[in-house]
Every structure is written in structure tokens, then in C-alpha cells.
């Protein structure tokens, strides 16, 4: 096995840390399903199958300097940027302390001002023009930050996606449009959403590069993200990255994916899952052993346990909170 990460300027510690984030994301997600099935978490959207691309992408950002407008599946992005399992669990259980929304929004509707993670909504694709607006402010003030904005391939069908990409192109804005193509918009397969193979093919029509990347490979994703960040910072404008991934779980805890996709397809993709693949990579390079992996899992499990415990004990908002923050002061 070649050492692919050194060539990307990533240290061994870096890739181990990336692995840790991918693993943490998966473990938090798995725990969430358990909580949901036990009736302790009313609703979830899952990141499973997309963690590798999320961590690879976020690794190329500078937390607190670069901006992020992650979509609801981007658990791996926000954990990599610096949100914690505890932050997530507080949101999952909609507690008063939930940093994203004080328990107002559904889980996974991220917001975290210190990390420049801008609040997101449920209506898809609205974040793309907003990301362009942030990038415009950056450009106007001559700052060096970049903006990461993500969305599913389904959301790429929305008018807002088009308007934002076109505008970002005109002004060569420092935005990275990051599309996580998991082949389905809930039940609607890619073929019913678009007549092309790649969302990335649209970039040419706006006048900036579009690249597709194996989203199950965090190093490849990191590589194309770094290129996009460099382009953005050097005034060359936006990039559209399309990470080919697969949603291994149903759309949400309310969904039943057996109605619309064969389980063999799911299993086929599971065989390509980025987590075990990256684990193998690290093991073959001798950076990870069964033993260190086991210890890491224990440590992360304890972190998740503590997060769940904390969040479950944390207080709900009080009814009077309903009326707060409609307007300023």
C-alpha cells in the first residue's frame, strides 16, 4: 500500500485524526439510531455512507476562519470543524442548551457562530445564495476566507442552486459548492432527477471547474477540496465538487427505503464504505492496529456515552422561551 497522504502534505497524525472524526461520526450516528429505536430520540437524519467525504472536505477548511453552510447530513463536517458529540446530542434531544437552535429546529440543522457555521433551514438549497452572499462580503472586504456550502444532488435541481452558482461565477467568489451525490432524493433516483451522470458537469455552463470524486475516499476528497480552496483564495473563483457517495441508511427515521431501492444495491455500496476502507489503509501502513483501533473506539464510545448522558439530563427550554428571539433586543 502506497502512502498517499504524505504527497498531499498530510502527516500521519493528520490522517489518524481524520480517521477519528470519520469513526466518531459513524458512532454518533449509530448511537442515534439506537436512541431512536428505543424511543429516546424522536427523529434523525443519518450521515452513514457520507462521513468519509464530509471529513475529507472539512479537513481542508480552517475552523473559525472559513465559513461553512453544511446541510443536514453533514455531521462529519461539523464534528471535524469542532462541534462535539455533546453539541450534537443536545440538538438531537432538542434541549435548551442545543447550540444550534436551543431545541427549536430538527436535529442536524447546524448553527455555530464561533466556528462560522451559519444557521441552516429545512427547505433545501436556500443556503447556496446565502453562501454566495457571504463570499461576496469576503470579497468586498478583501478577506482571505473561503465558504464551504454543501447540498444533496436532489437539491441541485432547485432554482436557488442555479442562481447561486451563476452569481458566484460572475464575481469569481471564494465558494466551494460541495454536492454529496448519494443517488437518491428520498425515494427519487438520480435518473428521475437529471439526465446527466454528473452534477459536476453543470459547472462548465457557469464558467468554473466541476470535479467528481469518489466520496468514499477521504484523501481524494481532501485533495480536490484543497485545490478548490486554493483556487478560491487566489481569486480564481468557485469550484463545484461532486462527491459520489451512497446513503447507507434510510432517508430519515421516518423513511422506509425498502419501498424504493433493492437491498442488494445497499449491500453493494456497503462493501465500498469509506470507513473500513480508510481503516484498512491506515492498518496497511502500520499507522493503526487492531489494538489502537479498539482503544480509540472505546474512547469515542465513552465520549458518546457522556454526550448522551449529559444531553438526556439537560433541561428542556421553558414554555416562555417560545416568545424569545422573534426580533432583536
Amino acid at each position: 500500500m502506497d502512502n498517499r497522504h504524505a504527497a498531499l502534505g498530510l502527516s500521519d497524525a493528520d490522517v489518524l485524526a481524520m480517521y477519528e472524526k470519520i469513526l466518531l461520526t459513524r458512532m454518533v450516528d449509530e448511537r442515534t439510531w439506537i436512541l431512536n429505536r428505543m424511543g429516546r430520540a424522536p427523529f434523525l437524519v443519518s450521515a452513514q455512507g457520507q462521513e468519509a467525504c464530509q471529513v475529507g472536505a472539512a479537513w481542508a477548511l480552517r475552523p473559525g476562519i472559513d465559513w461553512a453552510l453544511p446541510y443536514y447530513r453533514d455531521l462529519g463536517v461539523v464534528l471535524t470543524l469542532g462541534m462535539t458529540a455533546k453539541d450534537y446530542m443536545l440538538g438531537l434531544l432538542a434541549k435548551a442548551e442545543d447550540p444550534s437552535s436551543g431545541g427549536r429546529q430538527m436535529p442536524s440543522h447546524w448553527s455555530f457562530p464561533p466556528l462560522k457555521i451559519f444557521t441552516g433551514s429545512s427547505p433545501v438549497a436556500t443556503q447556496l445564495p446565502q453562501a454566495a452572499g457571504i463570499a461576496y462580503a469576503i470579497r468586498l472586504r478583501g478577506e482571505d476566507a473561503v465558504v464551504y456550502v454543501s447540498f444533496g444532488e436532489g437539491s441541485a435541481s432547485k432554482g436557488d442552486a442555479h442562481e447561486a452558482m451563476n452569481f458566484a461565477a460572475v464575481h469569481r467568489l471564494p465558494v466551494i459548492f460541495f454536492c454529496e451525490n448519494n443517488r437518491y432524493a428520498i425515494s427519487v433516483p438520480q435518473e428521475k432527477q437529471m439526465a446527466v451522470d454528473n452534477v459536476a458537469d453543470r459547472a462548465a455552463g457557469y464558467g468554473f471547474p466541476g470535479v467528481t470524486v469518489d466520496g468514499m475516499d477521504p484523501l481524494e476528497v481532501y485533495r480536490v477540496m484543497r485545490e478548490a480552496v486554493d483556487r478560491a483564495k487566489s481569486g480564481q473563483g468557485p469550484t463545484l465538487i461532486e462527491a459520489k457517495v451512497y446513503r447507507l441508511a434510510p432517508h430519515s427515521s421516518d423513511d422506509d427505503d425498502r419501498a424504493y431501492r433493492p437491498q442488494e444495491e445497499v449491500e453493494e455500496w456497503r462493501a465500498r464504505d469509506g470507513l473500513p476502507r480508510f481503516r484498512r489503509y491506515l492498518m496497511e501502513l502500520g499507522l493503526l492496529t487492531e489494538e489502537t483501533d479498539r482503544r480509540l473506539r472505546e474512547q469515542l464510545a465513552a465520549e458518546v456515552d457522556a454526550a448522551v448522558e449529559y444531553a438526556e439530563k439537560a433541561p428542556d427550554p421553558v414554555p416562555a422561551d417560545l416568545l424569545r428571539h422573534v426580533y432583536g433586543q
Partner: protein
Amino acid sequence: MATKTLIEAVREALAEEMRRDPQVFVLGEDVGVRGGVFRATQGLIEEFGPMRVLDTPLAESLIVGVAIGAAAAGMRPVAEIQFADFIHPAMDQIINEAAKIRYRSNGSWSCPIVIRAPYGGGIHGALYHSQSVEALFHHVPGLKIVVPSTPYDAKGLLKAAIRDEDPVLFFEHKKAYRTVRGEVPDEDYVLPIGAADVKRPGRDLTVLTYGYTVHLCLEAARRLSEEDGIEAEIIDLRTLLPLDRKTVLESVRKTGRVMISHEDNKTGGIGAELAAIVAEEALFYLDAPIVRVAPPDVPAMPFNRVLEAAYMPTVEQQYEAMKNLARF
């Protein structure tokens, strides 16, 4: 007559209309093999095929625009917006296009489309899966707005909407989908759009309401009758545009007291127009100020159950308001 849930009534209305008229087709996100995220279109793709049960790309403006075009070409599209909260990107196609097509063409084109959307809260849907959006369209002449509260009404009104010559917004309460059951005739029937329904007659006060809130008010009225001997007349508006002014005013003139109740937030809600109509047309019949019972003016109802409960109307709230009004 069989007892059915509201969503079953919706599904039957769709299937029967599609059988009756080959021009009727449904379109929206996940309406195909998934049968809709609430299963309102379940079974349709198997019976009518993917052309008449069209899974669209994720694009609401497109969905309504395609419906408008198909209607111009003689079809009878029934578009589903997955949640009412996602109707906003289609507002230009609804308000500037659908509502104005007949008028702007001096009557030479029309726009017989139906836009179905699940609305309302109390189902842990948070800010963007709980909204009531009817008031955003109530100001738009050219549209019709229907909100059924029972399976019987849902089926009869949805059929009427599909056969109507004008664009109809048809809002179905998500909590009512499976919790509200009722008799539904086996024969084909339609109910008139534009007619309110007195769901409970009463002499002491008039309650104007619609949608899921009808059931809260009915429950409160039963209690009020049993515990306090006060008889509230519960009017289910059913159609919000055009409003059935006649039924409303007759009742108000009879009881002299009017309460308006809805799940949508208060300012600029349907209750505003109802209050205005009463204040213009029946002011001197009133023995008490008009009362609007509606959630506070917050942008939308939160996910957390404490906050959601703080937002959602309750039977208790209706009961107290009715009692206070009757005793005024």
C-alpha cells in the same frame, strides 16, 4: 358506509378521479413508488403508471409551473407539495401565474390545477414541517383555498377541487391524517367549494374555525354543554377562499358572540378577515368583543416538545375562551 381515516379519503379521491378522467394525473416529490411521504398516493403508480404518477425533481416552482402548463393543454394536474412549508419557492407560479391566468387572458385561458399540501403541527415537525400557510394565499383573488377537517369532507372536497375550473389549494392537516376517522360513502359524491358546514349547532356563541382545530373546538363545545350548559355553534369554514359569508353572518346574527380559532399564528391570519367581515356587516348584533384564539406571533413552531406544546392550540384553551365569551 365504511369508516376511514382522512388520508384514506384523500387517496380514494385521487384514485377515483384518475379512473374517472384520464386527464387527471398527480405529480410531486416521492409520489411514485414511495407513495408520498405520508402515503397519500400509495398504490397509484401501480395502477396508473409512472407517466400519470410523476416523481418530479426536487423543485417546487417547477412542480407548479408544469401543472399550469399541463392544465393549459387540457390536463387536470394534482400537484403535491411535500410539506406546506415548502410551497414558498412556488409562490410566484401560484400567485403571479396560476391565480392570474384567467384574468390576464380575459377569460381565454384557465388554470384548473389542484395543489395539495400537508400542513400543520403537533407532530414534532419543527419550524419547517409544521407550518400553516393558508393566510399567505388568502389575499390572492383567483385562488380557492380548501381545508377539510373530516374524511367525508376531504374526499368530497378534493373531488370538487379536481373538477373545479380554477386553481385550488388543498391543505390537509398532518395530525388529522391518521387520528381523524369518519364515515365515507362508497358512492361518488362531491361537496361544494365555498360552503361552510355547521358541525355543531348552538344558540349561545359562534365559533369559526377550520382544519384540525375544528376537532379541538368540537371537544371543547361538548364539555361546555355538559359542564356549563352553554351551546356553542361550531362552523367549519372548509373553504377559506372564497369565504362563506352568508353562513358566518347568519350564525353571528343569531348568537351575538363570535370566537375565531385557528392553529396559524394570529396577526394577519384568516381570523383577521373573518373579524373584519363581522365588524363591517354585523357589528350591532354583537354582545361581546370578537375573540381570536390563535397561537402567538412567532416565526414557526419549534421542535422541542415543551415549546411545541406551548405553541399548539389545545381543547382547554378553546374551552376557556368559549366560556369567557359566553359569560361576557
